[in-house]
């Protein structure tokens, strides 16, 4: 299973993560499935809806009504929600215990490391079926 996108898609995540630094930012990854691949067609930055603004440097949440809207929109266009991205300000691009608690199977969880305001490492993860941990997901950039 690979996540397939263009450099433009990746750039949207980098810029959004840097703009939001030192807070965490988040967004929705929309596209279609093609056999084993997830073909990204749209990166949608959304607001970090984590309730306590003081904790937004370490936490993110996507509001369910926002997700509902995009889920409907995607379905209407014959697309799917493939996953989500969020940034880890000054932390590595690995899922944390908090991420695991909230994670869902199947979705891609793209994490962008932002170090002192500059986007560095980016990795994609999928939750193991038994929720015990993550597998890394290949990312392929195409023209």
């Amino acid at each position, binding site marked *: 299973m690979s996540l397939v996108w263009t450099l433009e898609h990746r750039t949207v995540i980098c810029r959004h993560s840097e703009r939001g630094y030192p807070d*965490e930012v*988040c967004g929705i990854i929309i596209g279609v499935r093609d056999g084993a691949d997830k073909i990204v067609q749209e990166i949608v930055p959304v607001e970090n809806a*984590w309730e306590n603004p003081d*904790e937004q440097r*370490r*936490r*993110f*949440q*996507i509001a*369910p*009504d926002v*997700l*509902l809207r995009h*889920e*409907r929109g995607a*379905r209407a266009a014959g697309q*799917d*929600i*493939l996953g*989500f991205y*969020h940034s*880890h*300000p000054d*932390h590595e691009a690995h*899922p*944390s*215990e*908090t*991420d*695991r*608690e*909230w*994670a*869902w*199977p*199947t*979705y891609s*969880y793209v994490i962008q490391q932002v170090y002192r305001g500059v986007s560095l490492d980016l990795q994609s993860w999928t939750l*193991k079926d*038994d929720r*015990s*941990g993550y597998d890394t997901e290949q990312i392929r950039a195409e023209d």
Partner: protein
Amino acid sequence: MADNVTILIPTALRQFAGGNEQVTYSGGTVGEILAQLTGAHTDLKKHLYNDSGQLRSFVNIYLNDEDIRYLEKDKTPVADGDTVTVVPSIAGGVAEMTEEVTLSADEVARYSRHLIMPEVTLAGQKKLKQARVLLVGAGGLGAPLGLYLTAAGVGHIGIVDGDIVDSSNLQRQVIYTTDDVGVSKLAAAKRRLNGLNPYTEITTYDTRLTSDNALDIFKDYDIIVDGTDNFPTRYLVNDACVLLGKPNVYGSIFRFEGQVSVFYAKEGPCYRCLYPEPPPPGLVPSCAEGGVLGVLPGIVGALQAAETIKLILGIGDPLIGRLLRFDALKMQFREYKLRKDPACQICGEHPTLTGLIDYDEFCGVTNAPEVDLDAQQEITPTQLKERLDAGEHIVIVDVREPHEWALGTIKEPDVRFIPLGDIPARMHELDSADEIVLQCRSGVRSAKALAILEQAGFRKLKNLTGGILAWSDDVDPSLPKY
């Protein structure tokens, strides 16, 4: 009753709903509609509801554009053509401020057989690395415990022991080598464990565990593993664990039999629930007195190591409230259910013990011999040797068992062999006019023999202080100690 209510299933949950993107049901409320879905797909149910039937906090159910939490929840009525949507909460973030452990590439390779098991994985291996386990005793049980817990990647291991390595340890304490004889157990064990796994931090406490130091040492550890072979320490470990709320992974061995349990007063019985009082001193012999099959502590210690690792990982069924007994001769495991005693002095409903006590006194253990002898009834090996060398006629009676005689005895002309149990029947073989010195391995059994003979009218009796062991130390080093 509404027909044609559609449920939209998010991508993440389709695999649990027969792969369907959406399904249509009839019903009166959102709850009824969802019940049909989860009834048809039971796997889906556990993703949506917790064990008590409440909707999970990270699941949102929308009726059209409204979250049902703000409507009438499960009882929200539905109408024809409505859409119910399951919306997962998407959240996360970097770790808490506490430092998260990581595994290096070298560690990942080292622990790969753990990491590929779904019950362990990277998350479990990190738990092992963060864990702090204290081993009380670096003997027969401590040896396999130290080796396996270190190999498994437990991050911090503390060891309490005050002994030095003796050649009689090597028959079972596989952590030591012949070269280690005479050096401190802690130094030898630490060297061995550091060589096995440099990622495990070993802290040593070169002391006997006492009521004065136990709480202070225990407080820094998550799990205490009891590998001791005496009752005072066993009660001390139990009581300190109960007072600090820590699990005590218990093991004991004797001859061909072993026992294992996990005493964790928060979740089950403690050692005192099982044995409120220690046995009378001397009734239960130690391994030094009764012997032990060398491989037995290997088996029992490995069982304790397995229980310790399960507790750290939070997997499987721990031996809480169960006592496992192993018989190597029958090659049989038997399990006994243990109950928490509501009247237990330390973990019961009204505990009377709120601190540590004097455990030597509690167990009736003192260093004095069990038979009270007068000072003039004792003779040291050096005194005896001097008198024998001066040509005095002294009859030496060895009261050990026949299989012990074969290991060697004092090389003097008049040594007779009468096992302690045969003394009453065979005392006529002795002449009460002779001066008689009684001897055994350490001087305990011979003191009993002396008391029996004294009762029968013998007067010229002496006990060899310290027995064969002392004779080997002070007079004849060629006599093997066992």
